[in-house]
């Protein structure tokens, strides 16, 4: 393991130079407010460049190979978008410089939200949320505000058992109670049980569409009808938008509010965990509740509108992760209508091709045509090789692992999402690797149980880390 930057410290190594403008201090800060020194590593640029170059080589990214991490949509990150977002007129733009100096940026925000509306059918979008779960939180705030405004006391939100953890967590932050809707054997929401839950206390239902099993709920229109008849709001977690983009619109499925993960569907890089961007979109009757400020266009001029008395308020220091939004804007302009539709068509084709080939070797708990991803599990793998073992062995074969042990309702789940940017060769090579591992499981299980072998570090002791948390470097 490479040392940390602190371990390269040596007094006097740093030769960084601060400009000298020959300006004196007329307003000396009293000593009681000052520190005596700054405790940061004393290293030279040479050390820094080598250190982070070496650290980078320990990482696996999309640029290496297929990254079939289900529900994360790890597609190719186009390079032109990186270049564009570093243009000085965008990157050096101060967020409070005023509308007249930021017309280009405001136009990007406005036009991107118009494009997202065209794709989903929603009436308007706010790009303020900085990530998917931030978008969810904003959406649930809108639901809360709406029922406050119409004077109805509704304190529950229905969430299916297959939902991402962010759904219940966002709902809880807004003071709602959670009702868990069970899925049936075929992976759809159990309609009978759902109908038993819907009453006057239900503010909304949140549904990931397609769901986290990679399946499109065949009763979606029925569910939306049941909710709307009850005066409840239908919220779409857009994490899996990749499966339907350009093919079907969330509005037409009956959803009233949704969020999008630009870092999934719209190709912006995940950056090792962020930044993302989680625009929230609404149908007409909720537009007035969107966060401030809202970008408005009038006669080709763009302005930040704060005069929105019904808004839930502000949710971000400024306007969200603008430079991320800019990359997605560029992506949509590159692809155009046909290209956008091809995302769903090819991502669903790729997933079904993998599903068809892999189900011959592995257990497929729910055997249906899938959307952009599907879930296998570790039932019937020889010699008690588990999902975790298989995931670790995949690392040896040069792949990232699928999402494992999620969704929770499938024991030993492996959620595989290839995305549309994998070619057929790449899919076939992945299948070959999976088949080889299956064979190893019966012939030579030790090699799997001890995997990974070729990675920068071997299996990591997460138990020790949690029992005795060491969260910072100390001499």
């Amino acid at each position, binding site marked *: 393991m490479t040392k940390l930057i602190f371990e390269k410290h040596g007094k006097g190594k740093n030769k960084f130079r601060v400009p000298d403008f020959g300006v004196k201090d007329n*307003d000396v800060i009293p000593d009681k407010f000052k520190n005596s020194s700054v405790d940061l590593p004393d290293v030279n640029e040479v050390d820094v460049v080598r250190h982070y170059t070496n650290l980078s080589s320990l990482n696996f990214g999309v640029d290496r190979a297929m990254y079939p991490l289900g529900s994360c949509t790890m597609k190719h990150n186009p390079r032109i978008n990186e270049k564009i977002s570093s243009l000085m007129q965008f990157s050096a733009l101060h967020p409070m410089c005023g509308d007249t100096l930021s017309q280009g940026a405001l136009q990007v925000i406005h036009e991107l939200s118009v494009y997202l509306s065209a794709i989903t059918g929603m009436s308007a979008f706010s790009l303020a949320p900085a990530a998917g779960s931030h978008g969810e939180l904003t959406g649930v705030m809108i639901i809360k505000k709406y029922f406050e405004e119409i004077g109805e006391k509704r304190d529950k939100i229905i969430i299916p058992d297959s939902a991402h953890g962010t759904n219940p967590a966002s709902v809880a932050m807004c003071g709602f109670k959670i009702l868990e809707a069970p899925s049936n054997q075929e992976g759809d929401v159990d309609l009978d049980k759902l109908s038993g839950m819907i009453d006057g206390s239900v503010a909304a239902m949140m549904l990931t569409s397609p769901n986290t099993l990679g399946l499109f709920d065949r009763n979606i229109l029925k569910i939306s009808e049941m909710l709307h008849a009850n005066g409840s709001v239908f919220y779409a977690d857009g994490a899996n938008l990749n499966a339907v983009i350009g093919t079907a619109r969330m509005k037409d499925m009956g959803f009233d509010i949704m969020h999008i993960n630009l870092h999934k569907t719209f190709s912006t890089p995940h950056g090792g965990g962020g930044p993302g961007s989680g625009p929230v979109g609404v149908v007409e009757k909720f537009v007035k509740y969107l966060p401030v400020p809202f970008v408005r266009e009038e006669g080709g001029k763009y302005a930040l509108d704060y005069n929105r008395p019904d808004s839930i308020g502000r949710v971000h220091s400024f306007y969200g992760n603008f430079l991320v939004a800019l990359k997605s804007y560029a992506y949509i302009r590159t692809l155009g209508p046909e290209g956008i539709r091809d995302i769903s068509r090819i991502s669903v084709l790729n997933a079904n091709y993998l599903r068809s080939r892999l189900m011959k070797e592995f257990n497929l708990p729910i055997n249906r045509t899938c959307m952009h991803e599907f879930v296998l599990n570790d039932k019937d793998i020889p010699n008690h090789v588990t999902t975790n073992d298989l995931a670790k062995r995949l690392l040896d074969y040069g792949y990232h692992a699928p999402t494992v042990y999620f969704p929770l309702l499938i024991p030993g789940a492996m959620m595989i999402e290839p995305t549309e940017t994998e070619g057929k060769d790449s899919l076939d090579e992945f299948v070959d690797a999976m088949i080889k591992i299956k064979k190893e499981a019966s012939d030579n299980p030790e090699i799997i149980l001890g995997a990974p072998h070729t990675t920068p570090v071997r299996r990591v002791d997460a138990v020790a880390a949690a029992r005795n948390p060491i969260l910072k470097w100390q001499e």
Partner: protein
Amino acid sequence: MSYISITEDEIKIMLGEIGVDSIDDLFADIPKSIRPDKKPDLPSPLSEQELSFHIGNLAEKNRIHTSFIGAGSYNHYIPAAVDHLSSRSEFFTAYTPYQPEVSQGTLAVIFEFQTMICKLTGMDVANASMYDGATSVAESVLMSIRANKKNKVLISRTVHPHYRDVLKTYCWASGIGYLEADFSDGSSPSDDLKKKLDNDVSAVVVQNPNFFGVIEDIDEIASLTHGNNSNLIVTVNEPVSLGLLKNPGNSGADIVCGDAQAFGNPMGFGGPILGFISAKKEFLRMMPGRLTGKTTDLDGKTCYVLTLQTREQHIRRERATSNICSNQALCALRSVIYLSIVGPRLRELADLNHRMASYLKARLSEKGFTPVFERPFFNEIVMRHKTADKLDHWLKDLGYIPGLYLGGHYKELKDCVLFCATEMTSKSDIDNFIKHI
């Protein structure tokens, strides 16, 4: 243009393997009635060359002027190595480090980030980052409420108005009492604050240096707050100040949060920026967001892994400490590289920032501007002048952003402007600016 490599011939083979006739058949679970033949109403596709040209035109519609505005977004020099190293695709095309064996680069960087934040703030633990400064304040308040089970927050009006707005939104949603305390001569300890500090107050929130650039007396506020058994949350929005100022932990803060955009991240029209949260160790299990811990692998080699994940939404669901999942990891990487390059010389940089602001203040004074608060300041200063609300209009046409007019944010500061100077506003920038006033 597109990034799909699958060919028509391959599609035929793949459909054969799946056992369907067409791609449309794969969508049979979506009711036909909501699957129109129509493609989305979007502009026609562009070549990469056309896209570059189009975006270049949009970029030209923005104007980058010599700026004297700070107010939560700071223009600092970014060493070339920061852009270069953070552009390595091994870093930026990776996802959250769920498979530690192939994510040691990201994990080690987060561990370094946690360490650097703790060193600078004087706290025991720091997380892997938050969305931005404003939500870091909101999440700090939620953490304080989890810790002492009181249900009200008292925030000083010297905290950034946007941060207070965001906190207000979160408090409304979570059913938390929200109160603002007035300031006295531009700083937080005020009679109003003392009056409102009652038994129900979970936390007092102040910013340092505050929104007016004034250096707060954190020791004094800490003793007031602790005397009331409340937690003190200090938000640092201009972290370069930590190169010069006593760290909030040493002055008695319980939670230190804020925005570290200033460390190597461009302003980017307000995002992505870099929220952070750090706290005393008793808050460890209530922290929101990801944490990286040190451990060993099967061979006993030192390595890093995401830890204490049972706090987080993917395990604890509705009882998680926060709903946050994606954070601002790549911005944290940039800040770690920045702080490694600048290193202990952050002190000289902070000192230069202060001197430039002091110089700007002196030059503005020559033009009849008067400082509003008689307080020590860092790199921002509030100045009063009868033309305050017109400066923006006059100077933007001459290529300057003169500072932030405060009348829109504080009714008592109608004739005041908040000016900022950093190492990016050179002496000649300031001299030329003053000529136009």
